């Protein structure tokens, strides 16, 4: 019985870690999936907007003397503006271009952001201030064993739930949210309703980038340090999560993100730490073989 209880409590601890990491992936994946759903493009610079958010919140707290909350808000505002500018300057002129041209541009934008950060901040790791998310961890006793949830995990999970609820309400209840669904489904028909496609795409980039700033704070608080490449791996993982859940689907991105985090942590804990990323992608390949549209990807056939 004792080894089983050790295993059980250990498993629960890992599960919480997985959900926490997965929540961060979910927030980032929302940016990918919304932009894909509405602008029909893969914004590979999204991960690097996270990195920018990390530096801005760091500077705001460390050098500009802002409070933790004000630092986070500053990063959100900066990233929102940055996302809209990137779309306006780099992607909008390519609206009629082939998707390959847009993809290459997005990759170029990703390198541009990384290299600007390298120029300004150099390549060394910076310690992310622990004071930004300063919440005590929660400890419970289970069969005499310790079940511990860190403060950052609590904040991450709560934030993610709030974002999911607000975003779902926004998409389903507000005029702008409904306009986004229309553009996502049929750009031409949306225009005939009087919806400006350009404006809708700008709003999508704004929301995605603001979420990226939140993800930056959560991610850096969890891993304590960051550098100009901080955004790229979580960006790729979150993109994977979006595909996993069904790209274009908002609930899919949430589910895909959380599952990806859980698989990564549990795979690392019980199979192999070195192979945890490989396990994640193996699961993705299997899911896509069985269901090519992803877990919640929709496919309604058109009726005639």
């Amino acid at each position: 019985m004792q080894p089983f209880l050790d295993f059980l409590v250990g498993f629960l601890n890992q599960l919480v870690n997985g959900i926490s990491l997965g929540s961060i992936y979910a927030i980032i994946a929302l940016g990918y999936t919304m932009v894909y759903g509405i602008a029909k493009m893969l914004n590979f610079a999204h991960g690097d907007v996270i990195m920018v958010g990390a530096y801005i919140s760091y500077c705001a707290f460390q050098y500009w003397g802002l409070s933790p909350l004000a630092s986070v808000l500053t990063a959100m505002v900066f990233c929102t503006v940055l996302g809209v500018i990137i779309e306006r300057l780099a992607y909008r002129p390519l609206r009629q271009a082939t998707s390959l041209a847009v993809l290459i541009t997005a990759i170029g934008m990703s390198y541009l952001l990384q290299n600007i950060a390298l120029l300004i901040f150099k390549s060394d790791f910076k310690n992310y201030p622990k004071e930004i998310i300063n919440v005590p961890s929660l400890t419970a006793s289970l069969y005499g064993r310790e079940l511990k949830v860190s403060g950052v995990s609590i904040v991450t999970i709560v934030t993610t739930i709030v974002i999911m609820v607000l975003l779902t309400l926004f998409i389903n209840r507000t005029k702008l949210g409904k306009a986004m669904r229309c553009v996502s489904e049929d750009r031409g028909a949306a225009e005939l309703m009087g919806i400006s496609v350009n404006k809708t795409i700008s709003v999508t980039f704004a929301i995605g980038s603001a979420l990226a700033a939140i993800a930056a704070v959560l991610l850096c608080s969890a891993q304590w340090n960051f550098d100009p490449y901080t955004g790229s791996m979580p960006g790729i993982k979150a993109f994977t999560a979006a595909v996993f859940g069904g790209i274009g689907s908002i609930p899919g991105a949430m589910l895909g993100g959380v599952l990806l985090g859980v698989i990564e942590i549990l795979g690392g804990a019980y199979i192999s730490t070195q192979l945890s990323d490989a396990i994640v992608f193996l699961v993705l390949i299997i899911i896509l073989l069985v269901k090519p549209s992803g877990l919640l990807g929709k496919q309604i056939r058109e009726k005639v």
Partner: protein
Amino acid sequence: MSENKTVNQDLPLLKVKDLHVYYGAIHAVKGISLEVHQGEIVTLIGANGAGKSTTLNTIAGLLKPRQGSIVLDGVPVDGTGASKMVYKGLSLCPEGRRVFQHMTVRENLEMGAYSRPKGEIESSLEDVFSRFPRLKEREKQIGGTLSGGEQQMLAMARALMSKPKLMMLDEPSMGLAPILVDQIFGIIKELHESGVTILLVEQNAQMALSVADRAYVLETGRITMSGNAAELLQNDDVQKAYLGN
């Protein structure tokens, strides 16, 4: 629906002059001129590829003409862009219906009234539901689950929600069973009787000519005949080419 009266009844509501449209190097519409007056149903008929839908899409702002002018209610509207046309009083019920498949019937209709203030939507919804009682029954159903005929009704109702001065219908009978075609044309007649001005594009020339006041016959991007719809219906050339007699 007819609250938007033109100031000058002698001026045509829509006046298209010498319209030229290209798809890349292909000259699809070669100098089309047409007029629609307040309260009329005007139809454009012609074979597949004659340029009917291209003409409508250009008027709606989805395509840019290389040459020519489009004047709606005395205001030049060419180059306005599709998303602003509905604010100018023009709505297009597009070919293939293009109902929002993942939205409910009610949401589809609300999107039709996107250009209008929120306070006016409810009364328009009631008006549309009284014209299309079937849609009222299906109010909460998802668009993609409706039958083809119901989707066509929804697309037409959605186009009406903006209270257009001119409603353009592109192939409303396409892909529908004969009984539904009759029903759709019945609705078009009713809309006409209640004062809605309609520009109708149809491959079903027989039906189109029987409801329209006037007609234009299109062949490979040019207007080859025009005039009173009832007279064109009796015309030998039209009969041979489009009515299979």
